[in-house]
């Protein structure tokens, strides 16, 4: 396809998208008005099923199929990262060095870790009652674990982070969502249908399957983000390319003194970094 033709195809696509967007937005109620046709129906349906947080009712009950898609996007992204950022044959793994952390930073991070962890679990557990849910809480939980890297060092983080376990749990969370959806089929209704008793409005056990879907997403997101960051951290902290070192070594003898100086200086800086 020539450059000119490609540009025309792009222009056509953009124009089509613009026309469709304008046509779709023309029927919308005005911004900030008092009429909310979709909102009213969503609130009605949410209260019908004893789910206090309407947004959770939309994402995990009325539109749970959309959420399955979103969850799969994250799962696919984590899978892609695991494959792309793996240790290749020409790369070596250096054990991370212990790092010195200034006492105020360590105190703050160690204090914030349990609080953040608790907040994250609270957000997951109360998804059907208050703003939040599995996705938001899952990320908070994953972030909380990484406070250990700030408080101590990478070795401490690695000790509480058996990566295989988190990868398995990530897949289990994704599978749990699909299996919970299949429970709807077994109950004789539809895939992802809310088949459990709805419970009492505004209690932890309300909303039927909504808290269970929330928990599945929470596990998937928390473990997925931990695995994602682990791959990035491994690349940034541990994995070095042996190829590059072999290239650089013979140079050291041939180069002038000043460059050798810079190199040793450089190596010292690297150690201090890690």
């Amino acid at each position, binding site marked *: 396809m020539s450059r000119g033709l490609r540009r025309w195809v792009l222009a056509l696509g953009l124009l089509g998208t613009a026309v469709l967007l304008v046509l779709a937005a023309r029927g919308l109620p005005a911004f900030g008005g008092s009429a909310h046709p979709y909102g009213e129906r969503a609130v009605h349906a949410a209260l019908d099923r004893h789910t206090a947080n309407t947004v959770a009712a939309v994402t995990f009950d009325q539109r749970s199929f959309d959420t399955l898609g979103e969850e799969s996007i994250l799962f696919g992204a984590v899978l892609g990262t695991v494959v792309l950022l793996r240790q290749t044959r020409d790369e070596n793994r250096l054990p991370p060095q212990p790092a010195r952390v200034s006492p105020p930073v360590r105190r703050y991070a160690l204090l914030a870790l349990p609080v953040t962890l608790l907040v994250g679990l609270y957000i997951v557990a109360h998804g059907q009652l208050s703003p939040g849910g599995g996705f938001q809480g899952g990320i908070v939980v994953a*972030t909380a674990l990484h406070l250990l890297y700030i408080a101590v060092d990478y070795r401490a983080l690695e000790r509480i982070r058996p990566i295989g376990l988190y990868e398995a749990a990530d897949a289990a969370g994704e599978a749990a969502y699909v299996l919970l959806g299949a429970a709807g089929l077994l109950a004789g209704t539809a895939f992802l249908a809310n088949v459990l008793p709805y419970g009492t409005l505004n209690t932890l056990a309300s909303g039927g399957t909504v808290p269970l879907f929330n928990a599945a997403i929470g596990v998937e997101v928390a473990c997925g983000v931990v695995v994602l960051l682990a791959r990035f951290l491994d690349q*940034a902290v541990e994995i070095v390319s042996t190829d590059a070192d072999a290239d650089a070594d013979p140079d050291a003898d041939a180069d002038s003194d000043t*460059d050798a100086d*810079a190199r040793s200086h450089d190596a010292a800086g690297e150690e201090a970094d890690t």
Partner: protein
Amino acid sequence: MTDLPLLAGLALVVAAATATVLVRDPGRQAFPLALLGLALGVLFLLLQAPDVALSQLAVGCALTPLMVLLTVRKARRRARPRGRADAAPARLRHEEEDRE
């Protein structure tokens, strides 16, 4: 007048987004990017969407900037030992940036 907080939130997002684009060094860009995440979170909160605000806060303030920083660090580590004799000044410059 009731729209004032909303306009302030929008202005904050515009300012943070512009700052993010104007900072050219990816390592430094992570910080205005985190601010942009915070500004978007505030805007969603003002638009009465606390669920989205929470997601935005967690992803935009913590996760994305951290991944940017880690990627920059990895790229610098790779660039360093590969440098030839003529790249020595560049290497020193990297070091200075790290110290800051």
